């Protein structure tokens, strides 16, 4: 199929991956790019493009029928909250089937194997087990729904990227913020597998699935195919800061010993949050933003004030949040989700994507990181 001549609907278009997909589709000469937009106020990046912004909500099926219009390809990057992952995906699949789309590309995640994928999950045929994490389990459930539609005739493909990075990625912006505030440590010498997936490599893979019949009903891991560790990833960012930051290390044993302390840290952070909330500056900032944002902040304050068991129940319901980090004996102890994310030893294999799709990652780590640095400078994350 020559996808360059088709109309394409992109979900999750106001997000990091979806936004870049819209740019690349337009650059590729696609005659009509339709970007599904639920939160209009987040559309600043894609509103620059001469594409169509169509209002719709993955949780409201009637809006999707209208949004899909004459699109013959759907690239589904949409996420929503954890509860919307499965239902929203099913709603989009149903609308796509009704509209007779020729390709449905589902952007899943390697995290279907958990935040710390266990050894043995290197290839796509590894059975998926429940992880107990709402985000991971819901993304796995969404894959099953996609494949069910695929077996009933909708031409679907599933891509499982891992750490999707590049300009605009929160992996880089959050890391820069953390580096600046000295909230970064090499966990176990930074040996964890990072499985970088440059956003443009991922989009190359999307385009390949759209033109390749062998992609139908198939699942593909997509990474940069390099054995980049978290140490490499963090160090590459630290080097951008002048003078280069020296980052300490922390071992798993030290993290485990510090864990009981995190409860105390949480109490401390609640007190600090309350102090900030009472401050004049904070109230001034609140005055500058619409009421809904203020409500969200209040809700976050409420969540952090809950007892741990209630908080965990909410976490399971709404997906991964970042619990607080801690300091022990002058050492920075990263938060548990960061520890889990950076602790895998698994490098996912892209052999299947290479073999079946002809996928070859074009953006190498060094070149990609140079572009990230350029973008970070442009966007004022770096002086």
């Amino acid at each position, binding site marked *: 199929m020559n996808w360059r001549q088709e109309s394409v609907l992109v979900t999750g278009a106001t997000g990091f991956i979806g936004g870049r997909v819209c740019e*690349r589709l337009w650059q*590729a000469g696609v005659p009509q790019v339709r970007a599904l937009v639920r939160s209009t106020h987040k559309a600043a990046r894609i509103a620059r493009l001469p594409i169509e912004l169509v209002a719709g909500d993955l949780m409201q099926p009637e809006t999707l029928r209208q949004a899909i219009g004459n699109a013959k390809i759907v690239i589904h990057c949409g996420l929503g909250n954890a509860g919307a992952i499965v239902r929203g995906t099913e709603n989009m699949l149903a609308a796509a089937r009704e509209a007779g789309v020729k390709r449905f590309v589902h952007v899943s995640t390697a995290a279907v194997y958990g935040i710390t994928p266990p050894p043995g999950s290197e290839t796509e045929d590894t059975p998926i087990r429940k992880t107990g994490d709402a985000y991971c389990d819901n993304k796995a459930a969404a894959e099953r729904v996609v494949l069910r539609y695929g077996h009933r005739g909708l031409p679907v493909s599933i891509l499982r990227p891992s750490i999707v990075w590049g300009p605009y990625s929160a992996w880089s912006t959050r890391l820069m913020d953390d580096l600046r505030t000295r909230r970064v440590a090499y966990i176990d010498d930074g040996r964890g597998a990072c499985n970088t997936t440059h956003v443009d490599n991922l989009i190359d893979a999307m385009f390949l699935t759209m033109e390749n019949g062998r992609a139908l009903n198939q699942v593909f891991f997509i990474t940069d195919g390099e054995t980049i560790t978290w140490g490499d990833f963090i160090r590459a960012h630290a080097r951008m800061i002048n003078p280069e930051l020296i980052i300490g290390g922390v071992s798993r044993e030290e993290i485990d010993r510090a864990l009981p302390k995190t409860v105390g840290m949480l109490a401390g952070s609640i007190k600090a949050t309350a102090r900030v909330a009472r401050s004049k500056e904070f109230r001034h900032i609140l005055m500058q933003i*619409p009421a809904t944002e203020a409500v969200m902040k209040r809700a976050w304050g409420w969540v952090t004030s809950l007892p741990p068991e209630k908080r965990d129940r909410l976490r399971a319901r709404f997906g991964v949040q970042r619990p607080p980090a801690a300091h022990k004996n002058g050492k920075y102890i990263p938060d548990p989700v960061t520890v889990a994310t950076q602790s895998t030893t698994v490098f996912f294999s892209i052999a299947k994507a290479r073999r079946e799709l002809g996928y070859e990652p074009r953006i190498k780590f060094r070149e990609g990181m140079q*572009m990230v640095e350029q973008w970070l400078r442009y966007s*004022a994350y770096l002086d």
Partner: protein
Amino acid sequence: MKMPLRLAILGCGAITRGEHVPAVSDHPDVQLIALVDSDLSRAQSLIDRRGLSCQAVADYRELLGRVDAVINALPNHLHDAVNRDSLLAGVHVLCEKPLAISAAEARACTELAAQRKLILAVGMNRRFFESRSLLALAMREGLLGTVREYDFQYGGAFDWRSASGFYFDRAKAGGGALVDFGVHMIDSVIDWFGPITAFDYQDDDWGSGIEANAILDVRHEGQLGEIKGRLRISRTFALKNRLLVHGTQADAEVAVHNPDVVVLHRTVGGKPLSETLRHENAESGSSYRRQLDNFIHSIVNGTNPEVDGWQAVRVMELIENCYAHKRRIPEPWAENAVERCEARV
């Protein structure tokens, strides 16, 4: 003019909810007659929530014989037609910025107000912050030495929850970041540093006309002499969100989110020092309240408002010139990755 002033607010979006209603609701010289919104339930729910004793009206034209003045807080593309209708009906207008989406419309509207001898004020609320007079005073009195250049940045992830979502429609908004917050910045720098005599403009619009980032380099030639400045606006990421004015003896800083003070930075005895300037008798109330006071004062006394239509025309003319002569901000990270066979690089 009989007091209290009979007033209606047109448009019940975010700015009306957050700023105009609080400024108006307990004003001793104002009788709020109606909130107007084509979505009547939006107007009614705002009235109920705030406990206001005014009417909810769907069509502003119903009100034109019954009010002395309106605050026009409708989406940008509706400003001009509604302003004209109001002025033709003998009603004074305080219009949210931008006055219109073209300089020609803004000019015609301003001329109409002059012919009818009515007040047409433009909602540039930043003019009513204390920093406006403090910085002017500091420069005039030589606290900075000779002023040669400045850097003005405002940016953050766009999060303005407009009720109508018109911000990302070129025909309704008239442009992107430059028309939105850029209007305030341009208005302020002309007010402080004098007329702009040269400019160079870049933005990141790929073809829809809704730029998220804009960089405007300007030269002023006014009473303070020649001053160069850079204005940078972003809707996608946080910038320094301050104006920094460089003088030969000191720098002056005005923070966007703390606009009632000016901080002077200088080196004394080799040590960097800073001091905060603030008015001993600062005016109370929000900038929107002070803006409303100025509007009422102009109506009562027949004086020019702080920001009249001609000042808005001047800003709109510059913005139109910027769009007409724009260059694209280079984004090598977005272009390097594109395949050779891909068409529109």
